[in-house]
């Protein structure tokens, strides 16, 4: 069996086991040791911790306390804010209560005081009580009444005050009219100030302004009566109605100026329009009355009717039969009208300025402001004053038109030529009248008026004035030789009577020349007139807007068409002069060229140069002609004359040259003669006539060639090339005039 199998094996195994266990024991002992070592540490810790326990308990209690407190706080803060809210409403109630109490107290005081004040005749105090009452919130008063037990007391006070207000209103109105009747200025002013306290702004303004109206009417009445009774001999008789109108406007302006501060203080700004609207009614009345008297005294209707008839008749034949009004007699009347018109304009501008400033300060609501401004426009537009102003302007324009037409007609009829003058009196006189009328229109202060007078001036100048000048030139300048300067002197006297006998050559000549000078002088007058009136208008109406300026400029442009007419007339005059005075004289002098031979030998050349040459004779003749005209023509016209003459001379010269034949020496002489002629004419004028000699000079140059080919030095793209005034064909036909040039050479030329 197995019992004795192997003890040694078993022993070994046991030893092994033992070894294992010993090792294990050792491990455990060391572990145990270390545990024992830790024990004290852990025990220390536990001791420490157990010390904390009571502290934690305290903390827990405290934290619980804290939570409690926080909850508490949050609750109470909620309570507080609610309370504050309530407090606010409460305070509102208190305020309202206070107000109501105050109102009630005041109501009580006022209702008690107002009666006493009325009894004491202390209307200011009474009105102040009413003013206080009116300033109370009436709806609040009603609410108070509902909340109160003691209603009857309060309602009684309200009723008392309402009654007192009505009573005071009646009293103040009554007292005011009493004061007006007694002319008690102190009381008038006293009650004027009380009206607004009683909430009677419009009534106060109405009453007060009605009072002012009456006063104004009285003064105006007195002024008008004294105007009507002004004796003819009085210095101011001729403008007495303008004076009366000015007194009225000045009185009104003074009223506005003195009462506006009062109105603003007691009634507040923004109420001037109401006041002026009432005053305007009286202004309208008075202006109408003054103008009616004026129209009657100055016989305006009759005069207007007369001049309308005259202007209607002037186009028919029986014109001269009607008795005319002397324009001079109208002068003063026109002056009075301009003054009256200007003053109306000035007063309207004054009102607009004042009221607009008041509206600007007093009314802040935009819509309301616009509405009030429109009311102002309507007030001005619909006023009798505006209509009268328009009527005055209409009268002015009709009379001024007549004055201008008639005065200019007179100036033309009484035309006189003073000795040693280039122009006759009608020029100065006419432009004096025109300037006077335009100046007078400027003094009306109406741009429309100015424009119309400018339009009329243009019409009179173009239709009446220019027509006369043109008619005189149409008579023509009689031809036939006579020493003009002599004729001029002799005949100055006869034109003075304005009776030019037809057939009298010298007189006709003088008349013609003077008309030509008049036209020239007039163009200068027109330019000066245009400049000066523009300046004067700018000074008189400094605030023209772009549109008004355009209007004015458009009317002024009418003056440039007068200038254009004058220029046409001058042109027409020179056409006349050319055909009767220049051509007939010049042609024979030029044709004299044909009497000379232009194919000369050297000997003939010296003889020609020693004797009187063609050019010398011509210049001498021209000198005589020019000097006679130089004396009598204005300097512009004289220059014009030289221009016309030069054209004639050069054209005729060309013609006679083309009819002649030249040799080399003939061409040489021609060249010299053309130069001396050009030199002579150029010296006589500041106009450049050199240009007019260009063709002639070129012809002479060609005829002065040595040979045909010389043209190539001047023609085409070469250094010496000139601006030709002659066509290639003309050049060739000129070259043919040289007898010594071969026609084949000329034909071959390529130009």
């Amino acid at each position: 069996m197995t019992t004795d199998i192997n003890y040694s094996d078993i022993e070994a195994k046991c030893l092994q086991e033992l070894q294992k266990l010993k090792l294990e024991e050792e491990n455990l002992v060391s572990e145990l040791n270390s545990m024992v070592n830790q024990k004290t540490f852990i025990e220390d810790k536990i001791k420490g911790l157990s010390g904390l326990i009571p502290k934690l308990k305290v903390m827990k209690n405290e934290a619980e306390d804290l939570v409690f407190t926080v909850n508490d706080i949050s609750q109470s803060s909620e309570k507080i804010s609610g309370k504050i809210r309530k407090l606010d409403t409460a305070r509102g109630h208190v305020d309202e209560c206070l107000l109501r109490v105050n109102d009630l107290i005041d109501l009580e005081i006022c209702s008690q005081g107002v009666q006493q004040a009325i009894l004491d005749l202390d209307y200011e105090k009474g009105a102040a009580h009413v003013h206080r009452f009116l300033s109370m919130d009436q709806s609040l008063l009603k609410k108070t009444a509902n909340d109160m037990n003691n209603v009857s007391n309060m309602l009684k006070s309200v009723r008392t005050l309402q009654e007192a207000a009505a009573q005071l209103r009646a009293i103040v109105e009554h007292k005011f009219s009493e004061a007006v009747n007694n002319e008690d200025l102190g009381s008038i002013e006293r009650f004027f100030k009380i009206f607004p306290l009683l909430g009677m702004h419009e009534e106060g303004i109405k009453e007060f302004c009605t009072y002012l109206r009456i006063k104004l009417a009285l003064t105006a009445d007195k002024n008008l009566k004294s105007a009507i009774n002004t004796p003819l001999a009085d210095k101011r008789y001729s403008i007495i109605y303008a004076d009366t109108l000015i007194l009225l406007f000045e009185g009104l302006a003074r009223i506005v100026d003195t009462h506006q501060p009062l109105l603003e203080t007691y009634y507040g700004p923004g109420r001037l329009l109401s006041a002026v609207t009432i005053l305007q009614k009286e202004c309208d009345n008075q202006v109408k009355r003054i103008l009616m008297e004026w129209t009657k005294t100055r016989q305006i209707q009759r005069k207007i009717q007369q001049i309308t008839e005259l202007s209607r008749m002037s186009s028919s034949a029986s014109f001269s039969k009607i008795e005319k009004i002397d324009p001079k007699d109208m002068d003063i009347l026109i002056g009075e009208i301009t003054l009256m018109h200007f003053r109306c304009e000035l007063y309207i501008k004054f009102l607009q300025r004042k009221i607009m400033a008041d509206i600007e300060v007093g009314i802040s609501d935009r819509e309301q402001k616009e509405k009030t401004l429109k009311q102002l426009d309507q007030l001005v537009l619909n006023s009798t004053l505006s209509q009268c102003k328009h009527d005055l302007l209409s009268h002015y324009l009709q009379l001024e038109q007549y004055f201008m037409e008639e005065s200019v007609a007179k100036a033309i009829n009484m035309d006189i030529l003073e000795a040693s003058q280039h122009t006759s009196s009608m020029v100065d006189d006419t432009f004096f009248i025109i300037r006077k009328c335009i100046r007078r229109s400027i003094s009306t202060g109406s741009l429309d008026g100015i424009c119309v007078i400018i339009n009329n001036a243009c019409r009179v100048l173009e239709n009446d004035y220019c027509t006369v000048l043109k008619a005189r030139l149409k008579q023509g300048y009689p031809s036939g030789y006579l020493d003009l300067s002599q004729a001029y002197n002799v005949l100055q006297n006869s034109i003075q009577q304005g009776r030019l006998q037809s057939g009298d050559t010298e007189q006709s000549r003088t008349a013609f020349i003077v008309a030509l000078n008049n036209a020239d002088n007039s163009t200068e007058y027109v330019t000066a007139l245009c400049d000066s009136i523009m300046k004067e208008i700018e000074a008189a109406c400094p605030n023209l807007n772009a549109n008004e300026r355009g209007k004015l400029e458009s009317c002024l442009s009418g003056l440039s068409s007068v200038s254009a007419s004058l220029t046409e007339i001058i042109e027409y005059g020179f056409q006349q002069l050319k055909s009767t005075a220049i051509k007939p004289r010049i042609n024979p002098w030029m044709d004299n060229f044909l009497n000379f031979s232009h194919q000369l030998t050297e000997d003939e050349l010296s003889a020609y140069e020693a004797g009187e040459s063609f050019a010398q004779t011509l210049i001498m003749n021209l000198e005589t002609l020019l000097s006679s005209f130089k004396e009598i023509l204005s300097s512009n016209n004289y220059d014009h004359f030289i221009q016309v003459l030069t054209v004639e001379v050069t054209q005729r010269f060309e013609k006679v040259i083309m009819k002649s034949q030249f040799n080399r020496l003939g061409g040489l002489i021609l060249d010299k003669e053309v130069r001396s002629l050009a030199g002579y004419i150029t010296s006589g004028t500041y106009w450049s006539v050199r240009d007019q000699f260009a063709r002639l000079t070129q012809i002479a140059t060609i005829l002065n060639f040595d040979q045909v080919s010389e043209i190539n030095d001047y023609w085409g793209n070469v250094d010496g090339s000139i601006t030709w005034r002659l066509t290639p064909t003309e050049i060739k036909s000129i070259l043919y005039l040289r007898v010594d040039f071969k026609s084949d050479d000329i034909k071959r030329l390529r130009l």
Partner: protein
Amino acid sequence: MDDYKFLFKVVLVGNAGVGKTCLVRRFTQGLFPPGQGATIGVDFMIKTVEVGNEKVKLQIWDTAGQERFRSITQSYYRSAHALILVYDISCQPTFDCLPDWLREIEEYASSKVLRVLVGNKIDREDREIPMHVGEEFAERHNMYFLETSAKESDNVERLFMQIAEDLMKQARMTNIPRYDPNSQNINDSTSNDSSCCSRLN
């Protein structure tokens, strides 16, 4: 600068209230003015239009119809290139006054003035003047005729454009340059400003 070639003056006349101011406003500003007051004296407006590539400046004078302003308005007839005589097709009296207006035109305006008769307010239901009556009147007096509505902008543009075209045609015909090679320009400054327009009348 203005660079127009032609400048024409157009004057509107006719009774107060026929719509002259409205016609001018409609044409120059493209609007129908609400409740503006009656014209005082004369008003002045400018509009530049184009006719066949040419700029034409129209100077439009709107006159007051009332008698009171007659001496102002009459003074503008003479320099007018065109006169527009307006009546209200819904108002017989404004038509009945036409002969008076013609007399005035005859007396004060240039004989060459272009005359146009205009019946305004054709938008209105209560017409009193049939179109053919206006037409016949115009024909009898040698005038152009047109019916318009300033309110509805009917024919307004056409009215003024027609006038501009006609005046331009007229100006071109009268202004055929009379060039005379023999008479050199003696006064240059004037030959320039004798423009078409100052020549017309």
